[in-house]
């Protein structure tokens, strides 16, 4: 019934599309096609990744060769250093991980994977991107205003962030806050769209447990985002008032409390980790099942662990604040909840690993990325236990151990996960095949230097090196560690240089790559039954797909082929061609 009404809504929506077909640049600025909006998010996110990567290059160069002019940038003053690390952190989380993993792939894949012709709210979708673009412009311009960009760290703890007397960036800090708030508004609009679309616009026959994992994960992530962001938006408004209207919500001399912000921030900030993790896990599951030719090991187990993670993630936030001056008894409670959340996450990893058992594993480029996600994320997950154990966190808090830990979670999520998704769905999105050899060179050229950047940083953290220092030569106990810093910086430069292989591969495939068939990986899910790339509306209106089974029926004993697409009717009479 819901589907019927959604279908009517679509028909209506389509009518209005046809009515005023847009041309030229307007087609891209005002398109309501979920695929165009996804591309806009994807390219904006990738541009921001380059900006964030360049910033990492600049401040890593300063750390390795302090006081020397950085090629392509210049001298890094302490104020600039703080602005760079703050912008790098905010950009990589809010303007790269979220737009690419959730908005770009969520937008592109949810309608295609559930057999819908578009999102249920296409205009809201368009507005979401436009607001997001505005947030990008505000953020980037904040780096060039008088006083420079905000340099208070991406968690923006007041009173430093609340008062220009302390942070010396009167404009930069307010603009940073406005940009973050706009980005949240954009993702609230996107999130409500994802949730409604998955609930109402699925293809006939697609029951809850027939939905592929990628849409599930994006939707669970969107629900978490929507539930967690409210307190932070309230907190951000109070912080904006403190900055600009002279209120004292976080000012202890006027009855406020700076720790209030930390609670509001991390109540959002910790679920946020899982908000970006889940879409990456969804991507990895699609790829691993396809290239291991294997049914997902425990579909329901995985779905429940994801749901359990989502719920538990709302009860762990204060492990960021063990030594922040909260009541020390609270730390015990949050140690317990933090350890408990390791269980669904561990189980999720076990499910991914167990899926490989009995498979027929093909190591194509997307599969390499998906496997690398698992191998590297395990390091990130395991090192998190050290930090979640309150007693050990006393020493490790705010050291490079923390930094290396979360890069071992966020890099697999935002970079490895994105490359996995990009290489896997590239044939569908652009209708061309990427070169496998170049893809593998890029893979190894990214993974090996990545480990050589961050394993040394674990050692620095264990040595007691604290974060956000522009020049460690000022600390007598840390001076002798300079060779380790230089190793990390050189590895970063090597890794960044290997990204040119990726861009070359993409441009080459785009211009003269072989044309992609509908279903190059012989996968089961519905997006592979559409044309590559799919036209506006995805399928011809009279041939919208119907679903007869779950998404991971590989190597089914009743079937000759090692895959069984969701849309093939179960009748025993021979289907003309599996990919139709």
């Amino acid at each position, binding site marked *: 019934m819901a589907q019927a009404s959604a279908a009517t809504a679509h028909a209506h929506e389509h009518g209005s599309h046809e009515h005023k077909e847009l041309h030229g640049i307007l087609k891209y600025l005002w398109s309501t096609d979920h695929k165009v909006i996804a591309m806009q998010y994807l390219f904006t996110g990738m541009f921001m990744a380059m900006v964030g990567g360049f910033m990492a290059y600049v401040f890593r160069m300063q750390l390795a060769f302090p006081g020397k002019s950085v090629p392509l940038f210049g001298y890094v003053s*302490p*104020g600039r*250093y*703080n602005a760079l690390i703050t912008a790098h952190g905010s950009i990589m989380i809010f303007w790269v991980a979220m737009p690419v993993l959730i908005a770009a792939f969520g937008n592109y894949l949810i309608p295609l994977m559930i057999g819908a012709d578009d999102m249920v709210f296409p205009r809201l979708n368009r507005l979401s991107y436009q607001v997001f673009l505005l947030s990008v412009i505000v953020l980037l311009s904040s780096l060039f205003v008088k006083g420079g960009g905000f340099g*208070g760290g991406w968690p923006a*703890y007041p*009173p*430093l962030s609340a008062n220009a007397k*302390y942070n*010396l960036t009167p404009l930069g800090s307010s603009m940073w806050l406005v940009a973050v708030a706009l980005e949240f508004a954009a993702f609230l609009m996107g999130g409500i769209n994802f949730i409604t679309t998955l609930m109402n616009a699925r293809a006939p026959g697609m029951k809850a447990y027939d939905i592929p994992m990628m849409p599930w994960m994006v939707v669970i992530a969107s629900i978490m985002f929507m539930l967690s962001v409210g307190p932070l938006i309230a907190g951000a408004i109070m912080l904006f008032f403190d900055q600009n209207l002279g209120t004292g919500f976080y000012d*202890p*001399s006027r009855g406020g409390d*700076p*720790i209030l912000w930390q609670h509001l921030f991390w109540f959002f900030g910790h679920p946020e980790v899982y908000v970006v993790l889940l879409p990456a896990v969804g991507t990895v599951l699609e790829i691993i099942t396809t290239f*291991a030719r*294997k*049914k997902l090991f*425990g*579909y*329901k187990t995985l779905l429940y662990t994801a749901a359990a993670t989502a719920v538990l993630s709302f009860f762990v936030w204060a492990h960021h604040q063990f*030594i922040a*001056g909260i009541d*020390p008894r609270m*730390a*015990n409670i949050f140690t317990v909840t933090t*350890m*408990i959340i390791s*269980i669904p996450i*561990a189980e999720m990893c076990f499910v991914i*690993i167990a899926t490989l*058992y*009995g*498979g027929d*594993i093909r*190591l194509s480029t997307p599969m390499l990325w998906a496997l690398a996600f698992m*191998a590297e994320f*395990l*390091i990130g997950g*395991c090192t998190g*236990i*050290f930090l979640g*154990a*309150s*007693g*050990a966190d*006393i*020493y490790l*808090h*705010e050291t490079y151990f923390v930094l290396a830990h979360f890069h071992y979670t966020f890099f697999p999520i935002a970079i490895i996960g994105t490359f996995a998704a990009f290489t896997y769905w590239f044939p569908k999105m652009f209708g061309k095949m990427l070169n496998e050899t170049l893809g593998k060179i890029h893979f190894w050229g990214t993974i090996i230097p990545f480990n050589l950047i961050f394993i040394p940083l674990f050692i620095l953290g264990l*040595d*007691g090196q*604290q974060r*956000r*220092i522009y020049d460690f030569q*000022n600390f*007598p*106990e*840390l001076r002798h560690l300079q060779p380790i810093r230089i190793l990390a910086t050189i590895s970063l430069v090597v890794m960044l240089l290997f990204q040119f292989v990726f861009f070359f591969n993409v441009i080459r495939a785009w211009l003269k790559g072989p044309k992609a068939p509908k279903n190059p990986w012989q996968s089961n899910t519905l997006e592979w039954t559409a044309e590559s790339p799919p036209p506006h509306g995805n399928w011809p209106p009279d041939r919208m797909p119907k679903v007869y089974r779950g998404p991971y029926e590989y*190597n089914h*004993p009743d079937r000759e082929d090692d895959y069984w697409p969701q849309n093939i009717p179960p009748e025993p009479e021979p289907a003309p061609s599996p990919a139709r």
Partner: protein
Amino acid sequence: MLHGLIPEASSFAGNIDWLIFLVLVLVGFWFIVAEGVFFWLIFRFRSRPGHKGQYLTGHEKHVERWIKIPHALVLICDVIIIIGAVHVWYIVKMHLPPADYTVRVTGQQWDWVFQEPGADGKLDTKDDIYTTDSLHVEVNKTYHFLLESRDVIHDFSVPVFRLKQDAIPGRTITGWFRPTETGTFDIQCAKLCGIGHGVMVGSMVVETPAQHAAWVAKNTPTSAQ
């Protein structure tokens, strides 16, 4: 475990290092098992001619145990880690052994200011010694610190003591430490506190009783004598 990298110079440094070692053993075991099984499966079930994948839903009893048993074992490891973490946390942050001396530590952009009790051993008396950026303490004495901030959030961190505590404006946070080795050690600010964060360094000078007495005698303000 960490003393190869950085000295253990306080009474509780050993407890914290022991906890880190405990976590390392338990987590390291799971890490090696998981990565080992992972790479073995990739190799064992690699695609090759004549090889066909199996059809398993993961909900069959005989395969489901491969998730359920590790699940239970992880839970046991978690309980052990929680007990260890709470134990160490209690020693360092929740219990307060009686003080031999009390000092006041104040963070401000971008200095550490210390108030030491002077010859009478009592804080907030006329013979208190005020110093900037270096705190002189006596080895094997229990110190309470009263941690305050004048402007933004700072973090009083002494890596060799394994001591770290945020300084929050508007609050006085009490903590303790007991130095066990003499020497001069770094005091860091471990919370980003503005453009001078990178130069907010101090030194913790741990002295023998004789050295400390001499230092106190030399630095007692003339007005108090």
